[in-house]
């Protein structure tokens, strides 16, 4: 397996600056990321789904994601679904307030005591959800959970990160008349090259098997993908040799 980012839970907060509930989302997300589950969570700025690159837009397919919204507009959940992938879970602070009978919260910039309590309670709820999601296997290929009997992904954790600007490694490849975004291709190529695998039919089959772990392959396209992966890998190896 290539050294891709290990399984973590993605957190996308609306961070709405106009509402106290938006501030709750921001601080609760931060509490989970920094204090409660730093090794198991990663975040991305919501606007990067549009302002960033393909790697940013792959976020919610790569990581099972919790969307945390301040109000019924549900900007984080809806935008994540529109531009990245379906969130694995989502919460709305205004709903939590109503459902749990929390005191009214005030202060966009500086929350009142009830607001800070809402931050703590929301963060705990999210941390619990992180644990639940990590207990399930997530397919980066399909962007959905895998049934328990076919679960194969490791659940190792590394230090918490903000995903801004780093993104998921992706590459566009022209296949069957269209540009297709393939996740992890550059990492896989690098690993094969480092292992001394020369471009060949056997290597092409191995590449295909590895690439399809992370990417959906349309039915009937195995041969085409294998051929194109071999071509792209040959180009990659040539560039590596020139660079050396």
């Amino acid at each position, binding site marked *: 397996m290539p050294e891709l980012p290990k399984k973590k839970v993605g957190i996308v907060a609306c*961070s709405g600056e106009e509402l106290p509930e938006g501030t709750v989302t921001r601080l609760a997300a931060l509490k989970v990321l920094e204090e409660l589950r730093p090794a198991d969570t990663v975040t991305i700025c919501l*606007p990067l789904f549009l302002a960033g690159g393909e790697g940013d837009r792959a976020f919610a397919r790569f990581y099972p994601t919790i969307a945390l919204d301040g109000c019924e507009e549900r900007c984080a959940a809806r935008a994540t679904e529109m531009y990245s992938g379906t969130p694995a879970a989502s919460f709305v602070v205004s709903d939590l307030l109503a459902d749990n009978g929390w005191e009214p919260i005030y202060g966009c910039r500086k929350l009142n005591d009830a607001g800070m309590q809402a931050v703590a309670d929301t963060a705990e709820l999210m941390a619990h959800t992180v644990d639940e999601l990590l207990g399930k296997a997530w397919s980066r290929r399909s962007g959905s959970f895998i049934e328990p009997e076919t679960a194969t992904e490791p659940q190792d954790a590394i230090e918490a990160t903000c995903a801004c600007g780093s993104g998921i490694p992706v590459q566009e490849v022209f296949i069957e008349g269209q540009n297709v975004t393939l996740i992890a291709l550059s990492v896989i190529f690098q690993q094969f090259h480092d292992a001394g695998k020369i471009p060949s039919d056997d290597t092409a089959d191995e590449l295909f098997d590895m690439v399809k772990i992370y990417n959906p392959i349309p039915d009937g396209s195995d041969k085409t993908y294998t051929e194109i992966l071999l071509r792209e890998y040959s180009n990659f190896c040539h560039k590596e040799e020139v660079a050396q």
Partner: protein
Amino acid sequence: MSDSTRKLNHVVIVPCSGIGKTYGTVSREAAYDVVEELRPDRSKLVALSMLVLGDEQARASVATNLVVTIDGCKLACATKMVQESGGQVARDFAVLDVYRNHRQFKPRGIAVLNEGGQQLARVLAEEIATVVDDVTDPSPEGGQNA
């Protein structure tokens, strides 16, 4: 006053919505400084998340007012999103640039900014307030978007 020189009565402030870095927090604090304290009558905040979702009211707000964006990193999400939403950016501020000019105010902290971060936010807010003054009409009846 001609249409081309007539001033607005509001400027929209759109800060970075980042939660993972100190500079994002500085951008937000500066925005609050402007809309709550320095120019509360002539500036208003629009949340970036609303623009990402394509909220009609948020898009209309940036499309019909001059906008000041504040970006926390080089990815410049705030500026890009305002432009994508049809808004006219009167001035785009980058927190890092402001810090380069005021290195005595080193920001630290994300949930809570240190003193240096708060001072940096204040300096930035004062620069933004100057822009607001330049493009708005302070008289109660003035402004083409009154």
